[in-house]
């Protein structure tokens, strides 16, 4: 390949460049950028987690003990925003960055510089958002959903809106990159229906992201103009309607919750076959289930608004549409179980987290179905039952899948094994305390305790105390995770094999551990039997 004016420095062609700043700030390497995403996400997990500790500490006992109500509201709002946009989504993008090129036999992402920009926007966006805590008027405190008119009363609105814009730009660019990579960079022979389920899940998630992040941008832009430029989108006196905001927000919001779970489905669909030593049951059904969940996610948004006063026809439509989602979701759960059925299973840490995912996510799915019933939701809405629901799907769902994937691929990334013993300690602590933390919240909600509130009736005292204890211990357990990861990256002596797990299939296991800086510079020759889904029956 001849090119004019080739005076570029040749570092980075065969190994990582030596200069720290150049390597990490100007990278075009999918593995380095993936690492940046993952480290950033871990940091955000701990920041968001510390906000949660404040919340649980205040709720430990009835009455106001530790913080001011406004600060409590800032904590609930920022906890959610940080976890959703800072921890879970970047973790999936980081995993996608690292693994998608390795799984489809591509040398890198399709648009590597844009990839770097997508990442670097994020630290700035979160600096902007978190800096509001130190503003004279305080940070956002109207909840992560930013409903007007409440959200319009916070001084920091402009900062938060612009931070959301930045995150949106970052997500959209990341998603475009992933779609272009999957559609354009697959090695010859890697047909669409031979791709790992994780890659499929990301393809569909990326589509969701491009479709709904701009809608969120539009919604918060209208908030901005309503507050600062005198528009009346959400002001009834001027012919607008605060409920309009809720429609637009949830048109984004419900697909958004699937953005946070579809890649998790993909991850679990990689891990379970490996440790069950069987190919995934019903590969095509898994792909179609993801696609139909994604489609349905566009027509269920108003299940978040049942109690707001919608016309009856809308309530009924959205109720049935929501319940339909349980069908493809059920297919997935059934197929994971069937994959394990009759397999020769072993229970390494990734598998433990994956199994916990299947069971606990399903609990969250069931409570979702309960919430989908309009008459029942009139009772449950805005109560701790909703909080329990979404933490089962998000913590024991999305976050457990991310943790499982980290254990699963950490040896591939670092070339060293993590400590299985401490991994299991981490698992058992997490799975026990997370249930102590969230299960009682179902009871609290059913008994009528409202969400987003710093003080409560003494009748709720016992379950809150149990929940808080679970919370502190679940939080503390994550320090074990931090320790295991740091140990594996910097200190572990135990070398990992190229095919780290005996039953693992797929291209990512054909490259050395640790994966070299550049992989698949020449497209690999694909042997179907090496793939997880090489022989899909028609």
């Amino acid at each position, binding site marked *: 390949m001849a090119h004019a*004016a080739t005076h*570029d420095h040749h570092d980075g062609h065969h190994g990582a460049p030596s200069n720290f700043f150049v390597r990490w700030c100007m990278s075009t390497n999918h593995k380095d950028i993936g690492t940046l995403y993952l480290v950033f996400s871990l940091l955000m997990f701990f920041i968001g987690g510390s906000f949660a500790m404040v919340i649980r500490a205040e709720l430990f006992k009835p009455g106001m003990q530790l913080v001011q109500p406004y600060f409590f509201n800032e904590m609930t709002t920022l906890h959610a925003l940080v976890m959703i946009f800072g921890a879970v989504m970047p973790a999936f993008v980081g995993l996608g960055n690292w693994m998608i090129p390795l799984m489809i036999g591509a040398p890198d992402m*399709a648009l590597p510089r844009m990839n770097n920009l997508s990442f*670097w926007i994020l630290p700035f966006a979160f600096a902007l958002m978190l800096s509001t805590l130190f503003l004279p008027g305080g940070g956002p405190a109207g909840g992560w959903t930013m409903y007007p008119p409440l959200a319009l009363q916070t001084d920091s609105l402009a900062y938060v*809106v612009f931070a959301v814009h930045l995150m949106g730009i970052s997500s959209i660019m990341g998603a*475009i990159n992933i779609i272009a990579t999957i559609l354009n960079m697959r090695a010859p022979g890697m047909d669409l229906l031979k791709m790992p389920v994780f890659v499929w899940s990301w393809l569909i998630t990326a589509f969701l992201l491009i479709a709904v992040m701009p*809608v969120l941008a539009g919604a918060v832009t209208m908030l901005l103009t309503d507050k600062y*430029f005198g528009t*009346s989108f959400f002001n009834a006196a*001027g012919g607008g309607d605060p409920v309009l905001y809720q429609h637009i927000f949830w048109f984004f919001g419900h697909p958004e919750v699937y953005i946070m779970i579809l890649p998790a489905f993909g991850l679990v669909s990689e891990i379970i076959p490996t440790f069950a030593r069987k190919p995934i049951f019903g590969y095509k059904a898994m792909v179609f289930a993801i696609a139909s969940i994604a489609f349905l996610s566009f027509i269920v948004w108003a299940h978040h608004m049942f109690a707001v006063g919608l016309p009856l026809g809308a309530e009924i439509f959205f109720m049935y549409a929501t319940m339909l989602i349980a069908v493809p979701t059920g297919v997935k759960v059934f197929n994971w179980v069937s994959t394990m059925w009759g397999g020769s299973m072993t229970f390494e840490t990734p598998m433990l987290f994956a199994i916990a995912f299947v069971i606990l996510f399903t609990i969250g799915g069931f409570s979702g179905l309960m919430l989908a019933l309009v008459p029942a939701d009139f009772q449950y809405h805005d109560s701790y039952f909703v909080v329990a629901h979404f933490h089962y799907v998000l913590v024991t769902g999305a976050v457990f899948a991310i943790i499982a994937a980290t254990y699963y691929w950490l040896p591939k990334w670092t070339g060293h094994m993590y400590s299985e013993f401490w991994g299991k300690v981490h698992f058992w602590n997490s799975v026990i305390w997370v249930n102590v933390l969230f299960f009682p919240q179902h009871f609290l909600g059913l008994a009528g305790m409202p969400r987003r509130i710093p003080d409560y009736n003494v009748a709720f005292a016992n379950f809150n105390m149990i929940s808080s204890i679970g919370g502190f211990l679940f939080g503390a357990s994550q320090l074990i995770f931090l320790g295991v990861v740091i140990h594996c990256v910097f200190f572990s002596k135990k070398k990992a094999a190229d095919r780290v797990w005996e039953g693992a299939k797929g291209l990512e296991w054909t490259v050395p551990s640790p994966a070299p800086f550049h992989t698949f510079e020449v497209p690999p020759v694909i042997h179907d039997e090496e793939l997880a889904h090489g022989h899909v029956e028609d």
Partner: protein
Amino acid sequence: MGQQQGAYFVPSKSQWPIVAAVVMFVTVYGAAHWLNAEPGESGFGKTVLLIGALGILAMFFGWFRSVIKESLAGNYNDQVDRSFRMGMMWFIFSEVMFFGAFFGALWYARSYSVPWLGGEGHGVLTHQFLWSQYSAAWGATGGNGPEHVGGDFQTIAPWGLPLLNTLILLSSSVTITIAHHALKAGHRGKVLLFLGLTVLLGATFLWFQAHEYIEAYKELNLTLQSGVYGSTFFMLTGFHGMHVTLGTIMLAVIWLRVLKGHFNKDHHFGFEAVAWYWHFVDVVWLGLFMFVYIL
């Protein structure tokens, strides 16, 4: 630059992405600070915003310059070209969804919130108790809501300037298509002529649009504050106008690049990307003409 890695092209490191992240941050930080300033107090927000905006301009200039250099050096093979195409297509899709949010607001206001405030459907009691004199209608008679936020106003008649602007944008779509065909046939003079015409048509559109805004503010009292009518009117046409501005600038840059001979029959992704963008802006306008002006 970049390197051909085996069978692929992988671009080399670049400072532009991180520069872009920094200048975007500076811009929005300035903007937020400015919006948040106490009334009467000026603060440093405006200055920071300006610095950031200039930084963004410089960043675009630098980033595109390096990309153009690589493109001219023949670094971009067909695969890279396909990635760029997909990138542009999905970017335009995201823009469609962005406009979708505002069109959604328009339809919701017209079909639901305004009629409900006037007592239709489940709005009976709101109407009775709060605003019983309000009779709901869209446009000048009720589009600013029961409290006539922003005062009485008149709307812009669709069959004057807006119709003219529709014709202008439609013809610009034709001229750019002619230019595209000419490019594929290798007639550079014809490309320059028709692309130049497209730029002029875009600029004329903007000129008329500015006129319309001035008329709306000065004579019709139709402003951004004119209730939900004014909000949807100015947000939709305003964002569209911003996109036309951007599109016109991009067309002008492409015109210069054609002049410099950057494109040939088979390699002209830059041209096509801007052409797609222009068609998109055109289609959005048709939606606006239909739903904002005529109906």
